[in-house]
C-alpha cells in the first residue's frame, strides 16, 4: 500500500504508532547499552538510572580482554555462519522447489511428514543425535554445527515453499515449453524471482547461527573453537557476582554487526525484486 494517498492526519497517526512501537522495542536495548557503560556496582541497582555516574568506555576493551579470545571466537562464529547460510539456502531452495513446482505422486504426503518433523522438540532428539555424532567422531569439531545445514531444515523448506507457491504456474510452464530443464527453471526462473525469501532464509540462518549457544555448548569442547555466543557465557558466574557491565558491553559488540547487516539488507529483501514477477 502506497502512502501517497493518505491524508495528513493518517500520516500523523501512522507515524505516532510507529514511534510508540519503536520506543517499546528500543527501551530494553537502550538499557543494555546504558548498563554496558556503567561501573559494576551500579549495574543492578534499583531504581534504574539511565545515565551512569561516569561513562566507563573502558568496559568495552575490558570485556574483550576478559573473554580471552574475542577475535578468535568472532572468526569462528563468522566461519560457521557463512557455512550454515550457504548450506541452508542451497539445500532448502532445492527441496522447496521439489515440493512446490513439480507435480509428483505422493508429494503432499511427504510434505506433511516434513511439517511433522518441525514438531519434534529439540531436546527429545538431542541425546540420540549426540550419540550419532559421537559415533562419527565429530564431537569437539565444528561439523555438528554446519553439516546439518546442508540437509535442508524443515522450517526453511516450508517458508520457501510458501513463497514458491505464490509464483504463477504459467511462468514455469512457459519455460518448460521452451525446453528448459527443471534444474534450469529452478536456477534461472524461480530463484531470481524469490530473492526476498532467499534473503530472509539466509538472514535468519545467519542470525540463528550467530546467536546460537546451545549447539556450541553441547558439541564444542576445545576453548579455541568456541563461538562468540558461547564466549558470552563466560561472564556468567554461578553464585551471583556476574560482571554485568562486561556482559552487556560484550553483548553490544556482538549485536552490532548483525544490526548493521540487517539494516543494510532489509531494503533489498523487503522491497524491490519480488514484485516484478507479478506483472502480467
Amino acid at each position, binding site marked *: 500500500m502506497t502512502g501517497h494517498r493518505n491524508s495528513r492526519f493518517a500520516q500523523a497517526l501512522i507515524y505516532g504508532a510507529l514511534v510508540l512501537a519503536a520506543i517499546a522495542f528500543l527501551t530494553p536495548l537502550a538499557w543494555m547499552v546504558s548498563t554496558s557503560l556503567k561501573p559494576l556496582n551500579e549495574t543492578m541497582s534499583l531504581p534504574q538510572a539511565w545515565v551512569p555516574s561516569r561513562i566507563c568506555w573502558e568496559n568495552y576493551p575490558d570485556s574483550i580482554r576478559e573473554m580471552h579470545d574475542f577475535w578468535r571466537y568472532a572468526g569462528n562464529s563468522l*566461519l560457521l555462519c557463512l557455512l550454515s547460510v550457504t548450506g541452508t539456502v542451497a539445500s532448502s531452495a532445492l527441496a522447496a522447489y521439489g515440493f512446490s513446482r513439480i507435480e509428483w505422486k505422493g508429494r503432499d504426503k511427504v510434505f506433511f511428514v516434513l511439517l511433522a518433523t518441525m514438531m519434534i522438540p529439540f531436546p527429545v532428539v538431542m541425546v540420540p543425535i549426540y550419540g550419532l555424532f559421537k559415533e562419527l567422531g565429530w564431537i569437539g569439531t565444528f561439523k555438528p554445527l554446519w553439516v546439518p545445514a546442508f540437509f535442508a531444515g524443515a522450517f526453511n523448506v516450508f517458508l520457501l515453499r510458501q513463497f514458491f507457491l505464490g509464483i504463477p504456474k504459467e511462468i514455469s510452464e512457459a519455460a518448460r515449453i521452451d525446453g528448459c530443464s527443471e534444474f534450469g527453471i529452478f536456477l534461472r526462473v524461480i530463484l531470481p524471482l524469490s530473492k526476498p525469501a532467499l534473503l530472509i532464509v539466509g538472514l535468519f540462518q545467519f542470525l540463528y547461527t550467530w546467536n546460537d549457544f546451545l549447539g556450541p555448548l553441547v558439541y564444542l*569442547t576445545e576453548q579455541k573453537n568456541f563461538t562468540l555466543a558461547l564466549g558470552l*557465557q563466560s561472564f556468567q558466574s554461578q553464585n551471583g557476582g556476574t560482571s554485568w557491565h562486561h556482559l552487556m558491553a560484550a553483548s553490544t559488540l556482538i549485536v552490532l554487526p548483525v544490526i548493521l547487516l540487517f539494516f543494510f539488507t532489509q531494503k533489498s529483501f523487503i522491497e524491490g525484486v519480488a514484485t516484478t514477477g507479478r506483472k502480467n
Partner: protein
Amino acid sequence: MTHDPPSTPPPVRTIWNRVLCVAVLLAGSGVPLQAGAGDGRIVIRYWEKWTGFEADAMRSVVDDFNASQGRIFVEYSSVSQIDRRLMLATAGGVPPDVAGIWAANLPVYAENNALTPLDGPARERGIHRGAYIPVFWDMCHYRGHLWALPATPASVALIYNKKMFREAGLDPERPPRSIAELEAFNGKLTRRSASGRLQTIGHLPEEPGWWNALWGFWFGGKLLEGDSRVTADSPENLAAYRWVQSYPERFGAENLLAMRDGFGNFASPQNPFFNGRVAMILQGNWIHNFIRNYAPPDFEWGVAAFPSSDPSNPQAVSIVECDILVIPTGAKHPGEAFEFIAYVNTRAPMEKLCLLQQKFSPLRECGPEFFQGHPNPHIRTFLDLAKGPGARTAPAVTTWNEFKSDMGNAVSRIWAGKAPAQDALGDVQKRQQKNLDRRIERWRRIAPAHTKSWREQ
C-alpha cells in the same frame, strides 16, 4: 518467453567474498591459548566452574604446578554449566582430564559410572582421612569408594547487621542462640510504615532462601534416613516448616511478597542485607567478598552459628558444601590428572587457593599465617562450624536435584499461604520416596557390573 534473471548486484557478491576470506583467516590463525605446552609435555585439560577472582586464584595454583615440574602441563578452562557439560562430554567420549564440580553432584556421577575411582592412587600417595576435616573427606565418598578430592569448602552461618541491632536496642555482640530468641529479636527489628507495609524485618527465611530445602537441620530433623528412607514429613521437619509457615501467618503473604519484590539483586548495593532492610540472614562464607564490594563502607557485621530450635541442646548446626576435583571416566591421562589433584591437596597450594578465594581450607592442619593474612575477619567462625559435630550435608542420593526442586516448590506454596506445611511436605514425601525407590531399583540392576569394574581399577 524468456526471462533474463537479474544478477546479484556486484557489490554484494564481492563483499561476501571478502568476508569469507577474512573469516577463514581469523579462524585458521593458530594463536595459541596459553604459553607453553609446545614442549612435548603431556597436556591435561581441566574444566572448572569458577570465573572472576575465584578463577584467577585457581589459575595461579595451576601456573605454580606447571612451573614446578616438566612432565605435565595443565590447561585451565572456565566452563559454565559445568555439571551438564561434563555429563555431555563424558557421554560423548571426550571428557576433560580433570573437572571441578560440586560435592552435591557426586552421587549421580559416581553411580552412573562417570568417574574414575581414586582409592588406589590415593592410597599409593598416602592421602588419607586424617589429613582432612572429616566431613570434607566423607563428602568425596559414595558407595564405599573415593571419587574425588576436595578443592575449596564452604559453610553457612547466621550473618547479622550489628548497626541494626544497636538501633533496635539489642546488644550487637549477642546474637540469638535459639529459634525462640531469633523470633524475639525479629519482633524488635521489624518496622512497618504508616500504611502497614513492611520496611525492615529482622529475619526472612526466603532471604536469600538458598537452603530452603534444609531448614529441618536446625530443628533436629533430616530429609533422609539411612540411604533409602525419605523422611520429608518427619515431626522435626514439620516443626521446621511450620516455623517457615509462621512468617506469612504473622506478616501476611502479600506484605512479604511486596517487600521481597523491592529487594535488589544479590550482587548489588540494593541487596536487602546490605541496605538495611533485613537484619539477619543465613549465608555462606563468601558473603564477605560481596559485603566488601557492595555494602556501604561503614557496614558492621557479625557471624555466629545459626540458632537451633532446642536451646537445651545447643549444637552449632551448619550446612557444609565443597567444590571437588574429579577425573571423569574415559579421561585420556588419568595418572597425570591425579598428580595435579594431589598437588592441589598439599598444604601450601591448598592454602594459597583457599586464601585467594577467601575461603577456609579443608585440610585439618592450617598455619597461623593463613588466618593472619585472611581478608575475611570471621573466617575462623566458619571453619569451626565445619569442624564441629553440627556440620550437616545435603542427602547424598542420586535424586537430590529433584528432591531439592520439590522442596523448593513446597516452600513456595507454604510461603504464598497456598498450603500448610503438613500438606506441602506430605506431597514431597510421597513423590520423593517413590522416586528414590525407582532409583534404588535401577541401582540394584546395574550394581553388579559397576561395582565389579570399580574394584578392579
